[in-house]
């Protein structure tokens, strides 16, 4: 019998697709990341409000942690900028031939803004403002 067509998650990830495939993976991770963040926020707020429970506060601790914040700031920024790139490509297919240049441009926007944001975040953490 033939082996079925299913492609395992890691098998797919191992395909050497290059930059645009990575961009797509990051877009999806960041999209899901934002959903997780917003969901946790809503759930935590609900439980704090309705029951004042301690474990609602422990949810807060998760998404207010430094690592989660670094992740979520990156997610919002990357998803937004990459989303704009995808929208441009979908609306003006002529731009598809400049896809490489657009990806460079995109990182040129994302990296400084992200760098500046974490700089400010860490500075505030240290000075405790």
């Amino acid at each position, binding site marked *: 019998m033939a082996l079925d067509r299913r492609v395992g998650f890691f098998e797919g990830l191992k*395909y050497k697709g*290059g930059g645009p495939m990575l961009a797509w993976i990051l877009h999806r991770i960041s999209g899901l990341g934002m959903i997780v963040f917003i969901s946790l926020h809503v759930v935590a707020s609900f439980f704090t409000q309705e029951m004042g429970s301690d474990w609602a506060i422990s949810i807060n601790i998760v998404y207010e942690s430094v690592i989660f914040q670094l992740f979520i700031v990156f997610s919002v920024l990357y998803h937004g900028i990459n989303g704009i790139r995808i929208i441009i490509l979908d*609306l003006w297919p002529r731009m598809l031939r400049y896809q490489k240049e657009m990806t460079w441009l995109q990182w040129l926007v994302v990296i400084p803004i992200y760098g500046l944001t974490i700089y400010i975040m860490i500075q505030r953490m240290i000075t405790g403002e």
Partner: protein
Amino acid sequence: MKVKLKIFRYDPENDKKPHYDKFVVEAEPTDRILDLLEWIKDYQDGTISYRRSCAHGVCGSDAMRINGVNRLACKVLVKDVGTKVTVQPILGLPIEKDLIVDMEPFFDSYKSVMPYFVGGEENPQKEQLQSPEDRERFDDTTKCILCAACTTSCPSFWANGEYVGPAAMVNAHRFIFDSRDQAAAERLKVLNDQYGVYRCHTIFNCTDACPREIQVTQAIGDLKKAIATSRLD
């Protein structure tokens, strides 16, 4: 030079699970991966199975994953990939034996977009002329050899085999943008569907995989635009 090959093996009659076999082959840098497979089949292990026909990148039989990307074995040279080579079947189609996959689902998608010329008149008495500019419009997508390298490199196709996939869309593009053809609307209707253009996330694996250097993502982009605007210009 010695080339080490790791080749995906699956024998439907004897194996429950696939495994990999290793071979060492003496080769020149200018040998093609297909030459190495032929050598192995002739002198080391006659049971190894793969498709090939023309051996010159025309028939589209021997698309496979070579070091993790879809390529034609007859177009990749040893010097392109180095002395350690892993060969696996293309992804997302049922594996029949070793590197041979069942291409039927792929051709079903191909057929679904009416990949043939639909003229206006029943019995035209003279040729239908076309300007060089109009011919140029779909030149790129005439080059497809239906090897399935693009479709089986696409994560959207891996996730769902109902997706018509890049190859079918390339061939739809070939006729939709032909100024003489009359069935563009019907084809666009097939593609304006949850299994049509909307599953393309501009991942570009297809464009990278195409052995004919067709700008596949560009063709799909043209189709998205045609559907969104109901115009072909």
